[in-house]
């Protein structure tokens, strides 16, 4: 690879009012973003060559980066390379200020959800070879950008905490009691998918309702509540208490079953289905209807 290719070239981000600092870039333009341009190549043909990535850059503190822009990097392509591998390479070899969260590299810590070619995806779980080049990598839409690909997750965490995400049961055996609570394999199976959430925030970022209503609990928090509400180990009273939280004004009834959350969830959690099921439960229990 020539040194020329190695140097990141900067390029102004498209003039989009959403891009000014606080909001992430693609908020309004999800459909169009990442669309293939005339010169694009299939990255899988690039073995032994380089892959072209365009990475969103922004830093409120650094003069040249206060105006959001895209930097181009040409990274040597290797079979099996993921989006995370590519940005790590770009950072370690070309520009050490390139900033993103990542840790486990195996789709379990949930820290590297990015907006890749117009879709929320986990960087570590997305093969470069499956994408059209140039690969456009942006922070999650609808979240405040802290720097480069890092978004502020506080609102997401707050919503997760709102649903009282912890096991509650008056009848739980004493701690030094060696007897477990019984749970049927079927009931465990029922909550299995919902228990896989890694708090990556992809679903929340893809949800139009959440984008328009800051108080909407959002798919991840509702799914978290589902896990507890459907667990037979908790009592009926607690289940009812949980449903009350969920059917409040900004709860399950806001969901318009657009399935965008289900589509992007890297853990394949049937989020929309879970939300629908909770709506039915709320109706069954005769809870107040908003």
């Amino acid at each position: 690879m020539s040194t020329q290719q190695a140097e990141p070239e900067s390029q102004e981000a498209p003039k989009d009012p959403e891009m000014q600092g606080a909001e992430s870039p693609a908020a309004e333009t999800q459909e169009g973003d990442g669309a293939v341009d005339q010169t694009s190549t299939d990255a899988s043909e690039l073995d032994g060559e380089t892959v072209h990535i365009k990475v969103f850059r922004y830093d409120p503190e650094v003069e040249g980066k206060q105006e959001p822009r895209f930097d181009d990097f040409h990274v040597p392509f290797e079979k099996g390379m993921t989006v995370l591998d590519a940005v790590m390479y770009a950072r370690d070899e070309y520009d050490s200020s390139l900033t993103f969260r990542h840790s486990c590299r195996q789709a379990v810590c949930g820290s590297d959800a990015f907006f890749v070619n117009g879709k929320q995806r986990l960087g570590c779980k997305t093969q470069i070879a499956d994408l059209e080049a140039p690969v456009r990598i942006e922070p999650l839409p609808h979240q405040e950008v802290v720097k480069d690909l890092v978004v502020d997750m506080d609102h997401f965490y707050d919503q997760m905490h709102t649903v009282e995400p912890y096991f509650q049961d008056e009848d739980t055996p004493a701690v030094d009691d060696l007897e477990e609570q019984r749970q049927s394999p079927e009931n465990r199976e029922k909550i299995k998918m919902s228990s896989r959430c890694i708090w990556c925030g992809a679903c929340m970022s893809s949800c139009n309702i959440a984008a328009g209503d800051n108080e909407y609990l959002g798919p991840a928090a509702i799914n978290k509540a589902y896990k507890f509400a459907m667990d037979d180990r908790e009592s009926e009273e607690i289940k009812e208490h949980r449903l009350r939280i969920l059917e409040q004004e900004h709860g399950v009834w806001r969901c318009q079953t657009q399935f965008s959350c289900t589509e992007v969830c890297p853990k394949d959690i049937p989020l929309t289905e879970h939300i629908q099921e909770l709506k039915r439960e709320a109706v069954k229990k005769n809870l107040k209807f908003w």
Partner: protein
Amino acid sequence: MYEHDVIVVGAGGAGLRAAVAAHEAGADVAMVSKLHPVRSHTGAAEGGINAALQEGDDWELHAYDTMKGSDYLGDAPAVETLAKNAPEETMNLEHWGMPFSREEDGRVSQRPFGGLSYPRTTYAGAETGHHLLHTMYEQVVKRGIQVYDEWYVMDLAVTDEPDPNDRECHGVVAYDVQSGKIEGFKANDGVVLATGGPGQAFDHTTNAVSCTGDGHAMAYRAGAPLEDMEFIQFHPTSLPSTGVLISEGVRGEGGILYNNEGERFMFEYGYANNSGELASRDVVARAELTEVDEGRGVNDEYVHLDMRHLGEERIMDRLENILHLAEDFEGVDGLVEPMPVKPGQHYAMGGIEVDENGQTCVSGLYAAGECACVSVHGGNRLGGNALPELIVFGKRAGRHAAGDDLGEPEIRTGYGDDVEDETDTELPVQPGEAGLDTTGGVAADGGVTADAEGVLERTVETARERVDYLMEKDEGVQHAEIRAKLQRAMTDYVNVFRTGDGIREALKVIRECRQEYQNVYVDDPSRTFNTDLQQTIETRNLIDVAETIALGALVRNEFRGAHWRQENQIRDDENWLKHTLISWDDGEPSIFYRPVILEGENKTYEPKERSY
């Protein structure tokens, strides 16, 4: 400055359990973690938690298996504490709602794991760690425990008496990753380090990028010795391209290893005639590399792990996550083809020396989880024994730090009259010749003898100066270059198979890294979310930790557990039933030894030949 009774550094399994325990003991506790708790590496654990829960099993059997697995380098009081408390702690997780896999009658399932004489591994699919981490974080949320997430802890505030046994820890210095603000955290009662493993010292590892041995290095520089660092576990089944782990659960459920000739080599070549694939990890890792070395590896690099015969239903029920990992990270469909696997760095048996109550020789300083060495795993950890360690010893450390009386420990810590001094092993480089510069250097000395606040303020000041120095310097070497060189050397020379010459070579490279680090600089000028700065500090920690691993490996001239030495392929019980301790002494590592404790409550564990 922030102030709490107990400060827990790190929010993985051990840290969360310590925080809940300290809270229950009545302390005002805060957690400080460089990652949000649910991002901690405990979430990656797959296989399960060992606990003698069923009739027909009991804690003594668990203790026996663990001592045998440790190759008789575990301390019996620690091993027995683990085995006795694991059932209660595991059930406690169930009571907190952890979604364990279940039997038809609704009881939690248990499965066989390597080196266990009874199927005592409790699990939640192949995602045990994920569920454990989330279940415990939920309890922290429930109790309203304060979490400072994305705060990176840089150093400990410790008094500077000459003898570490007289020192006291008063808190930590951390910086807010989002804003770059550097602050002191005063701990009135104690600091618990729960910072996880040092896997990033190697370049092929199952560990997360965040596993940089920060706690190890901070405790080491504060005067607490690092124990048995040479014992690094290489897991036999990691994916060749990324190091992502394929759980031992696959072999537990009946997965089979084949070489390139389709031979079931564990039996075919007599590596483990009884247990085959379920021999302990060191045995299997060596067998795989021997196959590769003797030309029977696939693509000269790995072997095959086959689970197809288990059938789709069983795989989906118990190992579904493995299918996803093999597909996403290696492009292999485990239902229709065997998975490529090779050994990868996985776990550090050694760590910060602590007693059964989690305390180090520095008063007020505790450690728990993978960063600590209590020591339960000795020369080799059994699969499924780390998670119970987190909850059993995390809880003890938290309670003790909060002031609960746990009784006198049997395990001693620090330099004392029961230790044996340095051997005459010749070192290839003069340790400590580089790295005394406190601003840019590898070794920062302690604080000053003063009141708690004075010590803390002074440490904060030093940290600020150091960061300013790194940020203002505008040329030099970048951490990534040093880190890559270090990782390469460790993987080349301090891997599964080790030779004295190789280790000496590694020590030379580590020393070069130390020297180059004197000239390190941070390119990113921003204080906002500066990962360049964070990784630069982490790299310094990796250098310190890698050096202790290599030094330990060099002096232990025998073969025990995961530590294989070509020159001496026998376990030397006469000379080596002892722990290696390395402490940072005036800018120089010094080595001493403490005998292993083989006397348990009711019996003495007699070293026997390990055969599987």
